[in-house]
């Protein structure tokens, strides 16, 4: 009994610095912002702030663009690394030299390569030069709908790296003894992949998807460095919406948006976790 209390105290003490940080900078102010979300200058206004938010066109533009980006970019940033790591796994020799090379987009800071992207994708840039030589009309990557395409390309380029490492580690953990009997029974490569490899890779895939979702939330960095604070309307995302309200010091709206968005994220994650649990049964 005494040992248990002692362990409880030690455990609590060890967790304390992290808990203090989370409570002070995240949890307590979030609770205060719930209060702010329902008030204007300390007067209770019910759902007024939320109604104003939902009526705002810029909010829905931001939601729409963020959704489009996520729905296209996240699957690409998971499937392409999966294919590359399956390809890497077919080599007999160790390919760790190549997987180190694949990591470099992750290590190189975004700001370092931004200028290269600008040179490549500018209206009179290298890519359009090549397109022109093939007789294709130039594409404007800095205005209009194609700007989203450029951001997705950069996101996939950057996030493939770590996902390849994670998938390769997951593939290495699948023992050869599981696959070989199936091969001997006459299953072809594709059947082995579909019936054995991919199901066994499911925990890794789940983790990769989660990490990719989390890093998709940070796409504002690329957008800001490439397009500045006020990008084309096709790239106006939630972080831009929030920033504009920070600049206007519109706290009721910021708080309402923060509450609403946290609920959206929690719902998406619950669906995601539920789906994962069902599919792994």
């Amino acid at each position, binding site marked *: 009994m005494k040992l248990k209390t002692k362990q409880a105290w030690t455990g609590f003490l060890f967790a304390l610095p*992290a808990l203090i940080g*989370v409570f002070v900078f995240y949890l307590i102010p979030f609770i205060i*912002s719930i209060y702010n979300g329902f008030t204007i200058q300390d007067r209770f206004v019910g759902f007024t702030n939320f109604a104003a938010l939902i009526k705002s066109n810029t909010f829905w533009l931001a939601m729409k663009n963020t959704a489009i980006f996520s729905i296209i970019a996240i699957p690409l940033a998971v499937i392409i690394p999966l294919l590359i790591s399956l390809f890497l796994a077919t080599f007999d020799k160790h390919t760790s030299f190549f997987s180190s090379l694949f990591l470099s987009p992750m290590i190189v*800071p975004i700001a370092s390569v931004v200028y290269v992207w600008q040179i490549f994708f500018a209206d009179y840039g290298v890519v359009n030069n090549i397109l022109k030589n093939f007789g294709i009309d130039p594409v404007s990557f800095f205005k209009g709908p194609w700007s989203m395409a450029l951001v997705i390309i950069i996101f996939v380029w950057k996030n493939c790296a770590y996902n390849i490492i994670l998938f390769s580690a997951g593939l290495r953990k699948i023992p050869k003894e599981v696959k070989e009997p199936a091969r001997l029974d006459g299953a072809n490569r594709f059947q082995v992949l579909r019936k054995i490899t991919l199901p066994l890779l499911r925990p890794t895939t789940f983790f990769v998807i989660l990490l990719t979702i989390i890093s998709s*939330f*940070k796409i504002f960095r690329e957008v800001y460095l490439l397009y500045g604070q006020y990008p084309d309307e096709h790239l106006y995302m939630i972080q831009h919406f929030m920033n504009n309200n920070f600049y206007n010091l519109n706290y009721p709206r910021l708080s309402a948006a923060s509450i609403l968005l946290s609920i959206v994220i929690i719902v998406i994650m619950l669906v995601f976790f539920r789906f994962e649990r069902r599919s792994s049964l």
Partner: protein
Amino acid sequence: MKKRVIISIKYVVLALIALLFLLPIVYMLANSLMPSDEITKAYTNSPGHYADFHLIPDNFSLEQYYQAFLRRPEFLNLFWNSVIITVPIVIIQTLVSIFAAFAFTKLKFPFRDALFFIFIILLIMPSWVTMVPNYMMIQRLGLLDTIWALILPSAFTAFGVCLLRQYMRYVPDETIEAARIDGASTLKILFRIVLPQVKGGIAALMILTFIDNWNMVEQVVIYISDKDKYPLSVALSNYAATDTGVIFACGVIFMIPPLLLYLYHSKEFKNSKL
């Protein structure tokens, strides 16, 4: 014979994929070795004139590096801003996470799982949600426009605790129990038994935290109004508009710290199982 052909084709494909990943970086490195006027000439955009793919320098020169290091004290200042923001975050995050992850994985205390649930929720929250509470607290503490506004919230994210907990779960409980029966203190168990087994996790945490914060943008543009305090992750993009001639060398210099950290830990990082 046929097998050989297939293997060679596979290596060609592999090399092409690697090239695709490396091209922007190689391009930056190659262009950093050109003199400034060559850069300005090659990439000055004028309508009707397309930029060429200009990989090999006409004239090899270290002028850009000379300019960045010796002629632009403001560049080194901005670089230093990045260092004094990122290094404290990595140190605080790593230390705090080691203790907390150990407590949440291997020690039992009341409300443990409920408290850890807060960390999981926080892990998935994007900056557009968390920056509102962060901003409020930073403002009340009077830290706006100081580097502490950037350091403190980022040092206490949930990422480290969640990541290290994943690694510590694989440390067998029996070894901990055995050490405890031998009379080892909890602190000793953590440092002598658990930490050596989660080296890969700590390497991954340090590399990922460093890279994440070395790239910090969204907090900077909200919490900091004094542009002299900007880290290079934001300030470097201003160079593209005004100082085209040195931009590539600045990019290369900015890349070196995360690269060194990665090379130092690369073996543990790549072999870290999760």
